[in-house]
């Protein structure tokens, strides 16, 4: 009689474990089924099927490499020719990150509880950030290209627009963890709201802000290359021209591929080194 509770606990535990395993198993089966049927469906709705395409996957790279290796001596000239376009792509990313991050700092301060100038308007600023974050860059870019014509400015505005929301959310999470004591201190000597934020909050959160901004810069370089492809200038535009020309300009395409790859890897490494220094510098 005295042992029943122990036994029942043991039994209960085993039953619980069994039920958990069952749920886990069911979840796994459902997940696998979803993946399999999803790939089947995607395959069926695709123009070319996976089975046929799989053998051709290296055809295009082989063409490109074949033609480029035939004209290897022209490659340095192509690098020089497309370098300005690459600089433009990076400029688009840099300016939009700069503008977007500045906007995000302001928005995030307005959207953080305890810091906001108008606490009533916090939900409004949050919704605005949700909206700008949900807007894919291409949507804004295409609309602006129609009005402003092709070029780097539509891409810049589009990426900055998205960056405000994306960084704003991360920044306001950082703000929420900031200590309010410096704010009280600065406020007690009669500082205005701007001064309070400038002297009380920003020194605390700046390393984190910078780290997120660097990460965003890296993402924005990719985005700016993609937007070039739909007509917004930069290296993406040159890539589109070279590729749609087809055979005969594949050496140019190869040069652009290499430039873009190197640029992405370079900024990726640079930002990760800088970010490591930022987070470790903050700690020591």
């Amino acid at each position: 009689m005295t042992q029943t509770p122990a036994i029942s606990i043991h039994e209960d535990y085993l039953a619980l474990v069994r039920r958990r395993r069952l749920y886990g198993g069911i979840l796994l089966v459902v997940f696998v089924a979803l993946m399999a049927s999803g790939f089947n469906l995607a395959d069926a709705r695709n123009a070319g099927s996976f089975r046929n395409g799989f053998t051709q996957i290296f055809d295009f790279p082989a063409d490109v490499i074949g033609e480029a290796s035939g004209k290897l001596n022209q490659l340095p000239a192509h690098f020089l020719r497309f370098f300005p376009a690459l600089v433009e792509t990076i400029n688009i990313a840099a300016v939009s990150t700069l503008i977007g991050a500045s906007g995000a700092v302001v928005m995030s301060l307005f959207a953080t509880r305890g810091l906001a100038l108008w606490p009533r308007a916090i939900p409004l600023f949050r919704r605005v950030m949700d909206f700008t974050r949900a807007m894919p860059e291409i949507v804004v870019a295409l609309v602006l290209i129609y009005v402003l014509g092709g070029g780097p400015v539509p891409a810049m505005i589009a990426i900055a627009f998205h960056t405000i929301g994306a960084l704003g959310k991360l920044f306001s999470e950082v703000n929420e963890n900031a200590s309010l004591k410096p704010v009280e201190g600065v406020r007690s000597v009669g500082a205005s709201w701007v001064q309070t934020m400038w002297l009380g909050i920003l020194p605390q959160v700046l390393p984190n802000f910078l780290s997120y901004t660097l990460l965003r810069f890296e993402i924005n370089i990719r985005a700016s290359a993609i937007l070039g492809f739909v007509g917004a200038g930069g290296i993406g535009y040159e890539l589109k021209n070279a590729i749609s020309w087809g055979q005969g300009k594949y050496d140019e395409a190869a040069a652009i591929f290499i430039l873009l790859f190197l640029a992405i890897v370079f900024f990726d490494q640079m930002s990760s080194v800088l970010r490591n220094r930022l987070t470790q510098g903050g700690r020591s």
Partner: protein
Amino acid sequence: MTDAAAPLYDQTARLFARKRLIAFGLPALVLIYLTYVFFSFGVPGLLERARWDNGRTLVSDAFSYKTHVTRDNRSGKVVVAIEGERKGTYPAGRSPDWVTTDGTATRIDLGHGQTAIFLPGKKVILELPDFGKIEAQYANRRVETSLGAKLPDWVSLSKSRLSIELEGARLTLTRNKTEVFRYFPGWELFFFTLNSPYYGHGPLEIFFGPRIDPTRSNIIGAWHDFWNNAMWRHSDVAWALFETVLMAFLGTFGAAIVALPFAFIAAKNFSPLIALRFTARRLFDFLRGVDGLIWTILLSRAFGPGPLTGSLAILFTDTGTFGKMFSEALENVDDKQIEGVRSTGANAAQSYRFGVIPQIMPVLLSQVLYYLESNTRSATIIGAITGGGIGLLLTQAMITQKDWEEVTYYIVLIVLMVMAMDTFSGWLRNKLINGGGGRR
């Protein structure tokens, strides 16, 4: 005492000088950079080149539609059509009440007290409240008007064409046709096209009223006509949205599945061979560095446009990203738990299952779910490039340069889709990570 404090003063002065330099130098650098970009992007020329009239059409078309009344000047036939499209043509005898036919004359009420009358002989009479009457006719191989030589700025006249901008309407007269547009607010035919019997019936009538079409019940018929609406193509749009989400889902989870085993190879504490580790890491760097754009181009050459290409492009890029993240997470795993599991006599597989997976699962899942939302956006963009999903519909609608109400509709749907995915992934993350214990 002053001697002892002197170096301190010096130091402080130097510190302040440096701070001042940074405080003024950094903004100055940024300003210089922005000025350089301002000119290198050609912003001054851009403002001149910008087509603000395009912007105006875009904005007004986004929430209004126009109905064309066109008189074919050869046959004398008058057609009333929404957006001038065949799909939106009013059947003969069912014209809207602001267009009345009186023998050979067609009288069109253009709102704001303006009236246009189409007459045979390529003639048109406009009655405007504060201007009076304008008569125009195509005769003797040219357009003749009653306006005289001095034209108001809302009238443009050439030998072969007259065009008059009115309030909320516009009239054009050429040899072949006389046409007026009248603008109305709203998205017309959103639910039913004109050939559907349910057009013009409200939801109350459809749900609770008598049968409108005797051959089928109201709800089934209305749903069928709505779903197959030729103007707005609701079923295609729904499919496109689904395809986009599918691309994001397959790409993200496919990448996670592929990346996990490679992450073990790339992690310092799980992989004994340096060469293997190095190879796995360079593979991740390569996959990530090539970027979604190039993967999309390469894969669309092999597989053609469609959701599979998009899924695989996301899968390839994100395998690199996840591989790097997962291997970092694995390197931060606490060895004590693994040791503990191993001390009970577990083999290698069991010690991974019970020692490692429970530790990294929350981190991994939260990263994967975060990417699910961001990949929904990527899938829209990839779809626009390679041709699949809602991105394709969006670019198609943009290319026509007139279906701006459809563009607006798609934009609204995209934003809602991304927000829904964001909410869903956040909810799932909360459920899976905090659901086991803690928050209930």
